[in-house]
């Protein structure tokens, strides 16, 4: 090359551009949140910063990396936990109750090469996991009764769904971190209305029961009080029944003939014989 050619600005610019393109194709930055799959002419040959359990940030393989320009290309895969959502899935339990279920699965791509081989890219993984999750959910929930779905056994149900999903997800190099039911609701319309009706009648039944129980409790309390009072009277008066008879008779006469002040009394006419006990002293024996 002669000097004039080297100094020609056109050549310089072309060279600079070429160098830039080369650099751009050689150097790449892998962030902490992504994994890179290196493709050799479209064929995945290796990974950079692939997920490993329990690694600490700063010690990962993230950073500035170099690859063979033009020959190798990169597919980026998220390293973080991602989610697949299922909204409003109608599930029929074995006791023929319809439930509307929202569920989600959290997953992480742990084998990006497998993922790239089978699915190509991340979006397609999500697209393929969703129908699998739906099928697993329906299968597993369809085997249960309504109250089982709601019971603490739900944990077992979820584990089964997770295991079922994991079996298939493994083909994509995906680890299912968690499968959870977000909502399980009765579908609006007749099922919801009949549930409300059931609740309403159950409440009214409870109200009636409470009223009846209250009445019963009140009667028992009164009866017990009567019994206690009777016991108290008996214990006292039984010491001398004859005197009680006299004492009570006196009280009774006073109540019937004298009455309380202010109380309306019938007029009383009394016909006495001189032989009467009260008039005994008339005879002055």
């Amino acid at each position, binding site marked *: 090359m002669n000097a004039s050619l080297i100094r020609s600005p056109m050549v310089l610019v072309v060279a600079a551009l070429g160098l830039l393109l080369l650099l751009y194709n050689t150097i790449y930055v892998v962030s902490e949140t992504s994994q890179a799959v290196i493709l050799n002419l479209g064929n995945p040959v290796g990974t950079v910063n692939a997920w490993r359990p329990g690694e600490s940030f700063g010690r990962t393989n993230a950073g500035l990396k170099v690859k063979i320009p033009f020959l190798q290309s990169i597919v980026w895969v998220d390293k973080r936990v991602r989610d697949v959502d299922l909204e409003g899935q109608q599930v029929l339990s074995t006791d023929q109750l319809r439930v509307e279920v929202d569920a989600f699965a959290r997953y992480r791509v742990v084998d990006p090469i497998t993922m790239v081989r089978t699915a190509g890219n991340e979006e397609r993984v999500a697209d393929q996991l969703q129908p699998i999750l739906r099928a697993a959910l329906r299968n597993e929930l369809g085997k249960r009764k309504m109250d089982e779905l709601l019971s603490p056994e739900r944990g077992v149900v979820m584990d089964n769904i997770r295991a079922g999903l994991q079996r298939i997800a493994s083909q994509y190099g995906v680890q299912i971190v968690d499968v959870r039911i977000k*909502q399980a609701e009765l579908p609006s319309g007749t099922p919801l209305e009949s549930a409300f009706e059931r609740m309403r009648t159950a409440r009214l039944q409870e109200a009636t029961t409470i009223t009846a129980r209250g009445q019963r409790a009140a009667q028992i309390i009164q009866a017990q009080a009567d019994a206690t009072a009777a016991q108290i009277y008996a214990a006292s008066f039984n010491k001398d029944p004859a005197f009680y008879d006299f004492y009570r008779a006196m009280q009774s006469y006073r109540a019937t003939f004298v009455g309380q002040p202010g109380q309306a009394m019938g007029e009383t006419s009394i016909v006495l014989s001189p032989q009467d006990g009260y008039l005994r002293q008339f005879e002055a024996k």
Partner: protein
Amino acid sequence: MTGRRVDADILRNDSKGPWGSGGNNNDGGSNGGQGSGPRNPWAFPPSGKRTRSSNPIEDWLSKARRGGGGGGGNFLGGGDAKRWYLVAAGVLLAAWIILTSVHPIAAKERGVVTVLGRYTGTLSPGWQVTMPYPLASVTIVDMSVRNETFPENGGDNLVLTQDQNIINLSYSVNWQVANPEDYSFQIRDQQGTVRAVAESAMRAVIATVPLNAAIGSGQDRIAARVQENMQSILDRYHAGVRIQIVAIKGAVAPQQVDEAFKAVSAAEQKAQAQVNNANAYAQQKIAAAQGETAQFDKLYEQYKLAPEVTKRRLYYETMEQVLAKSNKTIVEAPGVTPYLPLPQLKGSSETAAKQGVAP
């Protein structure tokens, strides 16, 4: 070789010139901050090259200089212009470095630093220095407590209980970032994750308690269990999030069945009232019995000491009171037939004829 390098430098300066002066004129800081600065040297070589070879472009450039750089370009000669560009570029570079390497971190924040993608450290509150932008990038993480409410914007949030009843539940979750690195690198859509986990955990717990516990006394326990479950789920995700508190704001019957629920509480009130009345009756009854018997007992003690006298005294006192208030007729029997004014007697129901009171 050396000549070429010098040329390249000149090229770079020249090419940066229009940008530099333009940028300086507008706002060097904001221009730098946008991160478009470093790319400029490479973006402009074509025009820079032509500066050298063709006069029309030279003219155009000087016009641009006049327009963009104000009067400055006019007064400087060719050699001085180059120096001026150099200074401008230097100033820009310095501004760029300062602006992108100094980070004010507020008290409730942390800065997660990555250098060329790799995590290198976390910045504490205060003025912190890192490498400038393209090398190092800082993600500010808000560490303050955040609040999520459910349902998000009012309305009903119907939840199934263990006994297949439905309640209308509203609650809130307070959470904060506990580990900014995990929070930044481990999960995607952090807030969405927290919300989804909260909803899932809450419904799972409500599904294990009966209606009465959910709308009544069990709420504290439910909230505590939800908090615990949420924390363990998020820890499994390595989310770097701490759940501060879960608070149930309202757990009530859906309005469709509200009337029936009110009927229950009305029945409870009524039953309680009945029991209260019965208790009052019982107290009264027993107190009366105790009073009466005490009276009798006291009298009986005295009667035991002097039976005959006491008895007669009681008898006379009573008769006195009885007869004092009555009309009395004393009939000398036998032989006299008393005429009783029966129609007169008939009128009053309380009438009684008293004959021969036995002592």
